[in-house]
């Protein structure tokens, strides 16, 4: 929560970002902005959050020297172990922060969107722990491929609302959550899961997730006495990537954003075979922000594709779009096969089953080890238990 790179009006990163939302949502969004700005300066709020991160979420997470993977790749690789955060992914860093904001704002109900289900689970966890009624919008396609997480959310007391519109994935779950919020804002807080959406979400989510990078910065200095040459993180909307990148932006560290290459670069009128909006997208407005998106020439949003539900999104956070444009962040791709290779290799070599999302970063490292330099950190944003059914099914195809 120490870093900022915004315009004077703070709603944009270069030309990216902003608040492209219906008027009915402007006031709720301005109220969230005001509350967040006030609370992020409050010592009491930060102490409260730090306490929960330590004692409830299990932070700090280790920065683990992956000796076997290092040997395989011929360079020193550390893994930032966000898979060990309570709930199984980095998502709780953000939901704890925002739920405390919601509490301070006097809201009683949380709504969230979820793709892989990890943000939904993390929202359900804070809903249960901090006493909110919780409803999670999830596309029907994602419900099918992430049944375990649906059950976890329900077990935690949240209601999962199936989304049947559009591509029935993360993009449409976000649309439905915004529609809900447009009618429910008086008592409801929209707990957005990634560093995208209208301002202040990209900044707020980055700030709450930057605990990943702040810890890693300190840990690598303790272990190695120097900063890494490279950090690689997977990118869907970009919350784990911005979380680990943000505290290194001013350092001489190569930052690689690994997007979902899916089935390849193919496209139809309505669909893209990947989720690589940063690498393959063009400027456009989606979910309240000007950013890089996958769209047709008329501005219709394409349905993205990835084996990893959490990367199956046709947009990306506006700050990453800005950092790509300035050359600070390098967008790369790992396709389904490469991700599966990363999934298996990390399991075999290190005894760590990564989330399919995180496996994209691992797979990229296996394919392009020289891009990592001599010393690198890979962000393992989540654990892979949720993906076993998906991988088993893929292997029988």
């Amino acid at each position, binding site marked *: 929560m120490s870093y900022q790179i915004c315009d004077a009006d703070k709603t944009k990163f270069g030309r990216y970002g*902003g608040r*492209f939302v219906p*008027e009915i949502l402007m006031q709720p969004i301005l109220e969230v902005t005001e509350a967040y700005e006030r609370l992020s300066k409050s010592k009491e709020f930060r102490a409260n959050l730090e306490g929960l991160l330590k004692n409830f979420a299990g932070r700090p997470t280790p920065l683990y020297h992956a000796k076997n993977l290092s040997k395989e790749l011929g360079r020193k690789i550390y893994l930032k172990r966000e898979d060990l955060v309570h709930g199984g992914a980095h998502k709780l860093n953000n939901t704890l922060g925002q739920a405390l904001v919601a509490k301070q704002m006097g809201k009683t109900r949380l709504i969230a969107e979820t793709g892989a289900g990890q943000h939904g689970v993390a929202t359900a966890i804070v809903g249960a722990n901090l006493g909110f009624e919780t409803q999670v919008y999830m596309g029907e396609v994602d419900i099918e491929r992430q049944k375990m997480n649906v059950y976890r959310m329900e077990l935690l007391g949240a209601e999962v609302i199936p989304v049947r519109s559009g591509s029935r994935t993360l993009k449409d779950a976000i649309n439905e959550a915004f529609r809900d919020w447009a009618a429910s804002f008086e008592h409801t807080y929209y707990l957005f899961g990634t560093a995208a959406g209208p301002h202040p979400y990209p900044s707020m989510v980055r700030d709450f997730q930057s605990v990943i990078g702040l810890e890693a910065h300190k840990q690598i200095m303790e272990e190695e006495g120097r900063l890494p040459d490279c950090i690689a993180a997977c990118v869907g909307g970009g919350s784990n990537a911005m979380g680990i990148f943000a505290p290194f932006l001013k350092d001489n560290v190569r930052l690689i954003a690994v997007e979902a290459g899916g089935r390849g670069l193919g496209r139809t009128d309505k669909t893209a075979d990947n989720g690589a909006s940063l690498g393959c997208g063009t400027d456009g*407005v*989606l979910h309240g922000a000007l950013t890089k998106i996958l769209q047709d020439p008329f501005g219709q949003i394409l349905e993205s594709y990835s084996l990893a539900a959490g990367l199956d999104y046709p947009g990306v956070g506006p700050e990453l779009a800005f950092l790509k444009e300035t050359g600070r962040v390098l967008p790369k791709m790992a396709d389904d096969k490469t991700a599966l290779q990363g999934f298996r290799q990390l399991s075999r070599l290190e005894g760590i089953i990564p989330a399919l999302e995180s496996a994209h970063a691992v797979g990229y490292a296996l394919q392009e080890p020289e891009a990592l330099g001599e010393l690198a950190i890979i962000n393992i944003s989540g654990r892979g238990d949720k993906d076993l059914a998906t991988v088993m099914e893929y292997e029988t195809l």
Partner: protein
Amino acid sequence: MRLSEAFQAKPLLIVYICAGDPSPAATPDLVKRLARAGADIIELGLPHSDPVADGPTIQAAAQRAIAAGMNTDVYFLVASEADVDIPKVFMGYYNMIFARGLDKFAADCARSGISGMIVPDLPPEEAGPLHEACLRHGVDLVFLAAPNTPPARLEMIQKETSGFLYLVARAGVTGARSDILQDTRDLIARVPDGVPKAVGFGISTPEQAAEVIRAGADAVIVGSACVDLIARGEIERLEQLVREMKAAIKAAKKSKAPIVC
């Protein structure tokens, strides 16, 4: 016709339809029939894949229209063909305008007889570049205000809007509702008389339309109720609804005159 001219003859009935639903070929005739039935302004929607301000009725219409081949090129052809002597207004999401290029989009509006633009996901704060393009091509840019818009912001929006001010009747998305809320009346009352104000979102019956006019609105916008009838292929009932709504708001306007006792 400019929107300001149309607002000389209050009260007005503004009818929304989704261009291309059920087919691009059907839209020009539909516009003409609505004009004949008494619509004063046609709000012609350009379907978007992700209509975040719309409820299920208009979402479904957008999907049908896109499946039927509607896109921005076809939209302007259809709009030109829908040659009526009442104003037509574009209604659509900002990314569709951004993708075409703001200047080109505004120029295409002017060329195809579209007098104004309503862009529900574009607040005045983000509208600077489109506003300039609209000024260059003589197209009005209509902004929206909602029941939860605070006073200072409402004043800003009133200053920025051109053509008229679109008052969102209630929280939530588009779609038919059964009642008119106190929120709606309060919002209408908060806007000074000099500002032409049209009320939309949730208005589906002649009774509701009349109530909104009695509460001080200059125009009523009806969308989902019409789109629903188009979806069911009931075009004659649609014309009937438009006639009834027009009659209801005219009668409401007369009855609004202060009673001296």
